């Protein structure tokens, strides 16, 4: 392996469900606000918006389903990628695969999945599920991610043939049962939805779940930059293609958020640029968690990103590019396409 080039641009993701997302006076849940926030992030040139989620309401508040929110902005955007969180433990894997594939179709390849693995008993109780032990949880992550990826492959890219002479709309040899047998469930397949434009959506997961989820992007949350570097190195050594650092950011007035276990920036835009410059050699991207999106996003757009661009450390995604293309990840071959036709 050659050492990574220092001038490669950082991919910058933004979590839009931070501690305080609202403009003063704005309804933070309103569709209009959602559309404005994502449009603002897109205009700023960010690569990816992530949508946090849980089956449980946030403390003292309300929250809409993440995939539904991401889909709502699908036709209102054309560059920024959209990554809803969805928990493997509280989802039907088949529905999850269809929902995310549909989001990828609706965005022409700008969708990603932020893998969640809540094991909180209250979250499991929403689907009538008893508590899960940690070993079983890892197995569940591995099984759900695997079956979702298999289902995305269950239609080959050229399955729809529309052959008028034979009356065949599709080639039945190119739409496959997945016959998945996991530890606690089985799925026959194929998916109801044809293969997504990216082939397989970009999967993001915390590096702590990387062994089970085998993500395309590992998210490293650590308050110590040296630890972030070490863990990024470790994730890459274990086959994760890209690593993003998680960072809380706040400029000026707003006080820091409570302890999140992430890198923390509380200071001037120039200081954030310096922090990102030092990270650029050891991670492929960052996911920013602003303390106050309404005031922090304009600072990112107006000061931080232009400075990074000038330093050759940021390139906005191009219109029409898939997220895989923006991230430099190859479109995977279909695992079923290589099989002998039966």
């Amino acid at each position, binding site marked *: 392996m050659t050492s990574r080039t220092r001038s490669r641009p950082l991919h910058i993701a933004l979590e839009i469900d931070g501690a305080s997302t609202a403009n003063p006076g704005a309804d933070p*849940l309103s*569709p209009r606000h*959602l*559309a404005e926030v994502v449009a603002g992030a897109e205009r700023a040139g960010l690569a990816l918006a992530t949508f946090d989620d849980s*089956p*449980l*309401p946030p403390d003292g508040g*309300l*929250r*809409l*389903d993440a*995939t*539904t*929110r991401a*889909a*709502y902005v*699908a*036709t*209102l955007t054309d560059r920024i990628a959209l990554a809803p969180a969805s928990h493997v433990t*509280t*989802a*039907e894997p*088949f*529905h999850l695969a*269809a*929902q995310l*594939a*549909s*989001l990828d*179709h*609706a965005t022409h390849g700008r969708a990603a999945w932020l893998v969640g693995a809540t094991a909180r008993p*209250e979250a499991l*109780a*929403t*689907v*009538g599920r008893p508590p899960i032990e940690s070993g079983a949880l890892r197995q569940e992550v591995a099984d759900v991610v695997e079956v979702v990826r298999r289902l995305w492959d269950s*239609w080959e890219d050229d*399955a*729809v043939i*529309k052959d*008028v002479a034979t*009356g*065949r*709309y*599709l*080639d*039945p*040899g190119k*739409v496959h049962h997945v016959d998945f047998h996991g530890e*606690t*469930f*089985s*799925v*026959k*397949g*194929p*998916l*109801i*939805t*044809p293969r997504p434009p990216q082939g397989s959506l970009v999967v993001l997961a915390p590096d702590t779940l990387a062994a089970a989820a085998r993500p395309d992007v590992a998210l490293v949350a650590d308050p110590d930059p040296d630890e972030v570097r070490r863990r990024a190195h470790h994730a890459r050594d274990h086959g994760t293609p890209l690593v993003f650092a998680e960072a809380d950011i706040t400029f000026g007035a707003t006080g820091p958020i409570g302890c999140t276990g992430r890198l923390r920036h509380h200071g001037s835009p120039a200081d954030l640029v310096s922090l990102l410059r030092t990270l650029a050699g050891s991670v492929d991207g960052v996911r920013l968690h602003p303390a106050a999106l309404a005031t922090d996003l304009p600072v990112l757009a107006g000061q931080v990103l232009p400075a990074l661009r000038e330093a050759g450390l940021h390139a906005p995604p191009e219109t029409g590019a898939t997220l895989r293309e923006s991230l430099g990840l190859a479109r995977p071959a279909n695992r079923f396409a290589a099989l002998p036709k039966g």
Partner: protein
Amino acid sequence: MSMTAQLHLGVFYTGVGPQFLWDDPGNAPHTEIETYVAVARTLERGLFDAFFLGEGLRVRENRGRVHSLDVAGRPDAITQLSALAGATGHIGLVATQNTTYNYPADLARRLASLDFLSGGRAGWNIVTTDNAWTGANFRRGGWLKHERRYERAAGFVTAAKALWAGDGPVERDDDLVRLRAAPTVPRSPQGRPVLFQAGDSAGGRELAARHADVVFSANTAYDKALAYATDLRARLARVGRAADAVRILPGATVVLGDSPADAAARHEEIRRRQINPQRALAFLEQYWGRDLSAYDPHGPLPDVDPTDEELDPSRGTISIEHRTGKLDRIRQWRELAEAKHLSIHQLVLEVQPRQPTFVGTPGQVADEWARYVRDGVVDGFNLSPYLVPASLDEVVDKLVPELQDRGVYRTAYTGTTLREHLGLAPVPEGARG
């Protein structure tokens, strides 16, 4: 019914199935978001109440392989409708969703999210299944007995309504529904998603009487529609709901022509393209349980005997009366083919059930629909297109103006929510009903 009785129109877009003329050059790509956006905007131009998406939780098969002749492949309904919510401003967005293979709190939350984001335009078409073949895609396949599917549905819908009412945590723990969940989504401008019910069995009708705002009825012909409306109103009275608490919208197809003869000819041509020779052979394969590809669809019926096994659900849900008696049915078909000298293709054209279709000039169909709605037999129709976008364009461009001329169809949207489009009473704050 009052003089101001108004017709409500929806489109039921399954996105898959044998009715679509995919070989037509005007057929738009079935899975592309642009097709959906264009259709939804066409329906808004035509002042429709709702755009429905169907549901299928397993791709149809023919003897163990994916069925190749029909349009297949579709998006997840709620995800797609959320994308449409961002691209439209008026049309109601209705997702068909199954109570057997979903979690109540999860589905209630996703529907409420769609409802809130669309400004109160969401609906849920409640369907059930008992079918283990479909269940093979889910964590708990084939767990629900046929007789208990509506019991599960009623418990599921009750839990969903309680979550939408937002009064606090909802807990239920019986052998059919188990959850403990708190509401997470704010109340939408229409209170909660509009509930549609589609099943025609006694259990389905009872669920409609207790819970539904709209029935997507299977009774389209005038006499059947009248009998259905009478039955439903009696059930509504028994559970203490007003006779007009539920809108009745049967499914229908429309084939228009410049003259009655032109419309009839188009109808016949569409049917022959839908039931083409390849599909006729595949239809018999489902019954024979055998590969019949060596037989000529224009020749006599297969001389080989069918297998003994009854139909499996792999070509779509089978009504309870068709789950047995396959060999008797085939015997009758042989006699019919013999007596009338029918080929395979001709026989299938004869015996395949016809979809309820209104055929005529725009004026004729408008007259007929005006009679239905003035007599209080239906409140409107859910139209199934056979060619997208053309078969919807002609309804919007030719039939809607005729309906407006007759005073039975709106000339502008007067509300913003699906409930308002349908003329349903508001859901009171905090109401569980």
